[in-house]
């Protein structure tokens, strides 16, 4: 399963829900599938998307949607891993974190991360979250449906390969990105 295969399934399952998207190749490949105002593109801030999504899931606007989704990479999740403890503490039932795990820092040349020796699902469960793996598109499709239905914060570890779809750099002004996203939440 490529990253873009996984992204396509995520946005099919969550077409209108707020989605926080981690930096680098993930943002670029999601934009290549089509811009959408319900997507918050995080252009840097490695390690922060899970926390941003946590804050969103606690905010008044989140009540309008079934879920607040975070798309994260394995390297960035390792940087912000302790956020899972705070997710477990606050228990936002709308919080869904999808980790696209290829065991590498894809945007910087494919250097390995520590993800292969880390059991993200067990860590998430130890923090009071629900969790499951997905190894291919069929499993991810099913996991995303489960993620929509589960009534507690949840993590899906989606194993992807090292394919990087060529996509241009995404160079839009972050001020505009935040405003479009904020208005989408406000007007939904």
């Amino acid at each position, binding site marked *: 399963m490529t990253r873009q295969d996984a992204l396509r399934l995520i946005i099919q399952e969550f077409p209108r829900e*707020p989605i*926080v998207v981690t930096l680098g190749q993930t943002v670029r490949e999601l934009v290549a599938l089509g811009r959408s105002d319900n997507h*918050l593109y*995080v*252009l*840097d*801030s490695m*390690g*922060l*998307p*899970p*926390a*941003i*999504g*946590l*804050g*969103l*899931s*606690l*905010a*008044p*606007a*989140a009540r309008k949607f079934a879920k607040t989704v975070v798309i994260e990479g394995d390297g960035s999740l390792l940087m*912000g891993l*302790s*956020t899972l*403890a*705070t997710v477990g*503490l*606050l228990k936002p039932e709308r919080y869904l974190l999808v980790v696209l795990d290829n065991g590498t820092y894809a945007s910087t040349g494919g250097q390995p991360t520590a993800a292969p020796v880390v059991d993200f699902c067990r860590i998430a469960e130890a923090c009071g979250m629900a969790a499951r793996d997905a190894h291919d598109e069929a499993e991810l499709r099913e996991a995303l449906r489960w993620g929509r239905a589960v009534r507690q914060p949840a993590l899906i570890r989606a194993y992807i390969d090292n394919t990087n779809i060529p996509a241009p750099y995404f160079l839009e002004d*972050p*001020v505009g*990105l*935040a*405003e479009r*996203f*904020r208005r989408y*939440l*406000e007007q939904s």
Partner: protein
Amino acid sequence: MRNIADPLAAEPLSLSGTGRAWPSVEERSQAIIAALEEIRPDMILTIPSSTLKHVLAAFEGRADIPVVPLTREEEGIGIAAGMVLGGGRPVLVIQDNGLGNSLTALATFPQAYHIPLLILVSQRGGLGEYNSMIHTFCEHVEDIVRAAGLRAFSLDGRIPAEQWRTAIVKAFEYAQITHRPVLVLCNLMGF
């Protein structure tokens, strides 16, 4: 003589020639509490400092203004900014060396995306400090924050406590109208 074993014990330092004592830790804390009561955040996100204990104790157990412990100050930047985007009204309450853990997050997310945030920051490492090494970072915080382009205001013992409340409330409002994080550096021990 200050009791080193209890550095926060009230022994007000006085301004030379005025006979007027600097505000005590308790007075400064009460001013911060009053400001937060006026702002009425929907959440206080914190990694506590010992000098903030009176402030945080005032909100402990409150359902209307819950106090949430963070694992890292950086995480709090993300949570707070996400809440604001979704219409929330959080305030961060942290120690100044926590800004060292937060700089990239601050600069690349709320600052860059123009997300208003109030961050109350307890200053350490100045006169009255009891920790022998904390100044190695803390005494540089104002310069670091300025170099990073973050807007900060400072409150210390030279400013009457009754003015702290107004300053903090105005800092919250200023963050909203300038669409950016605003830091209030609060020295609760001295200056």
